[in-house]
């Protein structure tokens, strides 16, 4: 019995090239555009985004034995890309590192945790420039906050999926997302004010 189950286990771990090809075709390749977009929104650079996508697929090949077929391929691939971005890319850029990020999180923690910013995007102030202002606000967020906005509001991952992709508890997902949205809303409110509009605190 022991020998049998050991053999069986090895068979499921060692995929044939045909099987690997099928996993790529059926489960991995369909997420290439989403991965590219994620990479682009993280790096704001097309070449870096391409590098990240390629790197993600090469790593997916290398670690394919740890992927359980039929599970959440998209979340698995996003986790790989997020790790590559954090580990490699951040070292090469002037992105705020962990200490800067802790500082930001502390500033926001020191505020009332129940503080909720509100901004009514239907207001005329945003008119035609709304697109630019939102992407500017998103791009100016510290990377951990930008990351969670992308995963949630652009890709539609659940709190649980984001928790696995980022490697933080679900409670932290919820609070970080809340803060990220507050930051964007505050920036948009500041923009509205700078245009001379009176924005009431809701």
């Amino acid at each position, binding site marked *: 019995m022991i020998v049998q189950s050991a053999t069986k286990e090895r068979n499921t771990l060692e995929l044939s090239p045909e099987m690997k090809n099928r996993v790529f075709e059926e489960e991995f390749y369909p997420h*290439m555009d989403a991965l*590219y977009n994620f990479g682009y929104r993280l790096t704001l650079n097309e070449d870096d985004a391409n590098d990240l996508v390629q790197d993600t697929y*090469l790593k997916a090949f290398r670690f394919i034995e740890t992927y359980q077929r039929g599970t959440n391929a998209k979340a698995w691939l996003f986790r790989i890309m997020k790790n590559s971005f954090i580990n490699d890319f951040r070292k090469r850029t002037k992105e705020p590192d962990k200490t800067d990020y802790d500082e930001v999180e502390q500033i926001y923690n020191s505020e009332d945790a129940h503080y909720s910013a509100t901004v009514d995007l239907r207001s005329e102030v945003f008119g035609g420039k709304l697109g630019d202002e939102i992407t500017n606000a998103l791009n100016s967020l510290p990377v951990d906050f930008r990351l969670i906005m992308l995963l949630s509001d652009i890709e539609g991952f659940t*709190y649980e999926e984001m928790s696995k992709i980022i490697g933080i508890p679900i409670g932290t997902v919820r609070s970080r997302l809340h803060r990220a949205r507050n930051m964007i809303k505050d920036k948009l409110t500041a923009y509205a004010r700078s245009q001379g509009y009176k924005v009431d605190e809701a």
Partner: protein
Amino acid sequence: MNRKDNMCYKVVEKIPQYLDGEMSEFEIPIFLEHVEHCHKCLEKYEIEKNFKEVVKQKCERKCVNDAMVSSIKNKIQMLLARG
């Protein structure tokens, strides 16, 4: 804070959870019942819903170019052939 205000406070705080699809089935009817009948909460709900939709819409997906797609697929094919 009276009972109605207290309920509004709780409902407003839960708007993101509802919009993110993270509210429990048990809470949804209570939440919706309140929002449908409370003008102030409905307004806040509409603002948040709009915010989430606009953010998604304005960050329209950028697609990877065809050359990159074939380059990646070729590399994977080579790795597969190597076994």
